């Protein structure tokens, strides 16, 4: 089952189109990375999913139902621009936000207690938000996003403002939420987080979706059968009908690193076999595109061919 399907979602403003016929499919129980440069339309899409604004065209389905007002309780949203009522106490604030999401007062109380314990901040109940540090307030905000046990959690740059220790804590909680059956939409610029956490990704650029799919599949799509080899000595010739030497750099002494593109159909093992005969191989690795590489080249507006070239040369 899919957690969320958007079909041809379009949003136009007076002078520009914020979203142009965006269709994405978010499978249940996955971490879905929504990527794109600033101003691409990610926030607009997230706001439409949260029913903060309406789309001009297109439809949205959440867990098989048409998205309606009653679904707000199923969604937890952590906006990029964090904010809480400064003068309100942590406990009262969480209670208020939980009730707005449709929890009863008693339910809300129980959940808040559990979460404050999880983060070991039970004694913060009576503290005013303005007296908390930025990182502390972020924790409170994270709790407010997940305390009503939403099936769909939307996190916009969730790690900004956290130190590495707390970022790890949040990562653990996110994975725990996924384990417990939540679907998580992740909007971020940090490619290392995407690499380590996301199962699926979509890339939005200039109001359009330009790429979507499981992370592995996306990476495979941009595989170019290129291998990075470290070897001793460089006086060898590759069979030109099967290989192309993309570049070669000295590392230390007579140790070199070469990028070798093999003709389609030649597998890694065959490449090793061929290399062993002509040079002393120190390391061998297939060159896979990083998410950062894919992101940058696609956003720069280079076509698939240019992308492949870029990836080989990088």
């Amino acid at each position: 089952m899919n957690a969320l399907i958007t079909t041809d979602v379009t949003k136009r403003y007076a002078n520009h189109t914020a979203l142009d016929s965006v269709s994405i499919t978010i499978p249940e129980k996955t971490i879905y990375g929504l990527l794109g440069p600033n101003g691409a339309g990610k926030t607009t899409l997230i706001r439409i999913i949260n029913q903060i604004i309406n789309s001009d065209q297109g439809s949205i389905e959440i867990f098989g139902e048409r998205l309606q007002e009653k679904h707000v309780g199923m969604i937890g949203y952590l906006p990029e621009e964090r904010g809480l009522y400064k003068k309100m106490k942590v406990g009262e604030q969480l209670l208020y936000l939980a009730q707005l999401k449709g929890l009863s007062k008693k339910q809300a109380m129980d959940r808040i207690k559990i979460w404050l314990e999880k983060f070991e901040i039970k004694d913060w109940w009576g503290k005013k938000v303005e007296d908390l540090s930025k990182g502390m307030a972020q924790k409170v905000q994270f709790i407010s996003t997940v305390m009503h046990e939403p099936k769909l959690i939307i996190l916009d740059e969730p790690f900004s403002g956290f130190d590495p220790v707390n970022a790890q804590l949040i990562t653990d909680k996110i994975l725990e939420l996924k384990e417990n059956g939540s679907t998580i939409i992740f909007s971020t610029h940090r490619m290392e987080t995407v690499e380590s956490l996301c199962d699926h990704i979509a890339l939005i650029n200039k109001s359009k979706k330009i790429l979507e799919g499981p992370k592995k599949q996306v990476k495979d799509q941009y595989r170019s059968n290129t291998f990075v080899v470290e070897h001793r000595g460089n006086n060898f010739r590759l069979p030109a009908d099967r290989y192309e030497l993309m570049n070669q750099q000295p590392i230390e002494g007579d140790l070199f690193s070469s990028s070798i593109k093999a003709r389609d159909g030649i597998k890694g093992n065959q490449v090793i076999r061929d290399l062993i005969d002509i040079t002393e191989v120190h390391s061998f690795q297939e060159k896979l595109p990083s998410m950062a590489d894919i992101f940058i080249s696609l956003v720069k507006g280079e076509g698939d061919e240019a992308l492949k070239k870029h990836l080989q040369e990088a």
Partner: protein
Amino acid sequence: MNKIWLIIQREFLTRVQKKSFLIATILVPLIIPAIMGGAVYLMIKEAESAKPENLLVLDESGAFKLENSKRFIIVPVSGPIEQAKKAYSETNDFGLLYIPATSVNDPKGITIYTKESQSIEKIGSIESMINNIVKDAKMERYNVDKETLKDIRNTDIDFKQINLSETGEEKSSNTFLLYGLSMGLGIMIYIFVLVYGIQIMTGVIDEKTSKVVEVIVSSVKPFQLMLGKILGIASVGLLQFTIWIVLMGVVSSVVLGSFGLKMPQQQAMEQVTAQMDDEAKEEMESQAKGPAVAEFMDNLNQIPFTKIAIVFLFYFLGGYLLYGALFAAVGSAVDSQQEAQQFQFPVTIPLLIGYLGLFMFVVRDPHGPVSFWLSIIPFTSPVAMVGRIAFDVPGWQLALSMILLVGGFLLTTWIAGRIYRVGILMTGTKVSYKVLAKWFMMKG
């Protein structure tokens, strides 16, 4: 609906729990009667301690026989004028009155010299002393004898004002009393709408600058948030107002009681109990000391307090809702208090017009055309109609004004809601009226 209720609760509780609310709620009713009491006390003291001042008079005509008054002791001096002026400048006396050799029937060139500019009241009293002498002289010329003159002077008519209603019922009315009531109610509405309207605006700006608004509108519709805020703050206002009235009543009766006076409400209450209880009524009548007091109480009794209270409450809320929505829209459009000022001003102008209209037209001529229109147009009607209501407004006018006010606040709430839903999510935009219009037109 349930969510609006949650918002109302939060807006109400966070404000009521503030120390500033507690302080304002308790101090205002203590301070206002204290100021009133202080003013009365000082006035009485001053009246007691006021001593008559010397007025030097150089009368070259010899025809003006001025007498000492409460304010002035007449000190005749001798001329010529230059010498008298010099003599005066060496004293601390009030002034030098110079009457040249002129005819009492047609005096010319009378001049008063003082060291500083003096109050109209004092100068006026000197002028009227001279006027009276001239009048007397004229009377004598027309052969009016002194006794008749004295009798004419002592005229003090007993003037009653009675409103004849369509049903033929007679109501005596006391213009002075109505004047005060009308002014007081109008001012209260003005202050209430302004103070609480600005609270709404500040609240919206706070939510916007602290960014919490995005979280909230992911749970509720922007319109629900706006309405919840407006209603929550209204309930704070009503609570504060109720406490003020009760506290002020208690404190005022204590303060005025120490001067031997009674609060109008207290007297009205006595009236009410008297009507219910014949014995008490007789008792009260026996307490009424003179016809003047009885008349005052009668007038007070004629004022339809219940009607005024209901109308007041209606316009109090209607005006607040009408302007509250506009203040919410202003708050949503801007990023800071400073930025808000440029839009806050146009919103307050119609309110200010109603307020000025209250002083310039409504209390002077409550049934004149300007007063009529001010009390019909929704933007000025909360202040103007409440100002008029004490003067018995025809039923159809009241009904028309109320319907228009309801229509007015529905309209402003609708307009404000459309601006608000877009504005709260826009930060860092340079907002102009054109931008506001665009937001208003934006669909979805």
